[in-house]
């Protein structure tokens, strides 16, 4: 189990990416799965920093945690910003041409589509967003042969 705490500013996105990629490497994820986990972590961290803290005039931190077992890589991000359940966010209309798109709403959508399981818990004054990637022995064997 690994933990890291970063301040809730956009400058922390580098550190979030490093933390997530280190977990992906430790779990033996391939390039595509690693990229998608990084995307999920980056988008949710961005959302928390921008909407949960900065726009609300709040300061705080993001607590990152990664757990790896035989079958699953679990990454969680906890914050004390504004309560927000990403699962309740409106789904963007990806069929619309760009001319008619609203500017926001894509980050959460990308995050949720990039991991195998996407969970959210509200614990007291904390948001906990959890991503799970299923580890497949077959895929690591394949990459070993490649």
């Amino acid at each position, binding site marked *: 189990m690994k933990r890291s705490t970063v301040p809730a500013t956009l400058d922390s*996105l580098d550190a979030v990416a490093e933390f997530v990629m280190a977990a992906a490497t430790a779990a033996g994820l391939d390039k595509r799965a690693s990229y998608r986990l990084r995307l999920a972590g980056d988008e949710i961290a961005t959302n928390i920093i921008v909407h949960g803290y900065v726009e609300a005039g709040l300061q705080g931190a993001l607590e990152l945690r990664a757990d790896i077992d035989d079958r699953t890589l679990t990454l969680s991000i906890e914050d004390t910003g504004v309560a927000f359940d990403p699962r309740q966010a409106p789904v963007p209309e990806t069929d619309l*041409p*760009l001319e008619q798109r609203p500017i926001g709403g894509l980050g959460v959508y990308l995050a949720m589509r990039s991991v195998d399981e996407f969970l959210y818990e509200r614990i007291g004054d904390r948001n906990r967003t959890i991503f799970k990637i299923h580890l497949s022995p077959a895929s690591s064997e394949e990459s070993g042969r490649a």
Partner: protein
Amino acid sequence: MAFNATLTIDSGIAKITMSGELDASMAPVLQREVENAEAQKPKRLVLLMSDLEYIASAGLRALVFAKQKMGPGVDIYVVGAQQQVMDTIQMTGFDRSVITLETYDAGIIDNI
């Protein structure tokens, strides 16, 4: 993390060459170059992405902004995007609103 965006405009074709990792902290860099391009009223906007290693939704929003500012008459080309970057573009459906090319094809892009 490093991200660079360089704008050149030639014969009405605006080209933005991107490299590095484009997350929300770097998106204003691209946004500024899109605004600079738009100010010149180009006929086409070409985004050269072969050296772009990562793109977040904040970077994609600059594309939405570009399309909405420049209007439907200005085609946007996405050239040389790496597989994972292209996956993200496709997940959002943006690939249906831009023209994607694996490599720079002067016969298509420069032929106004």
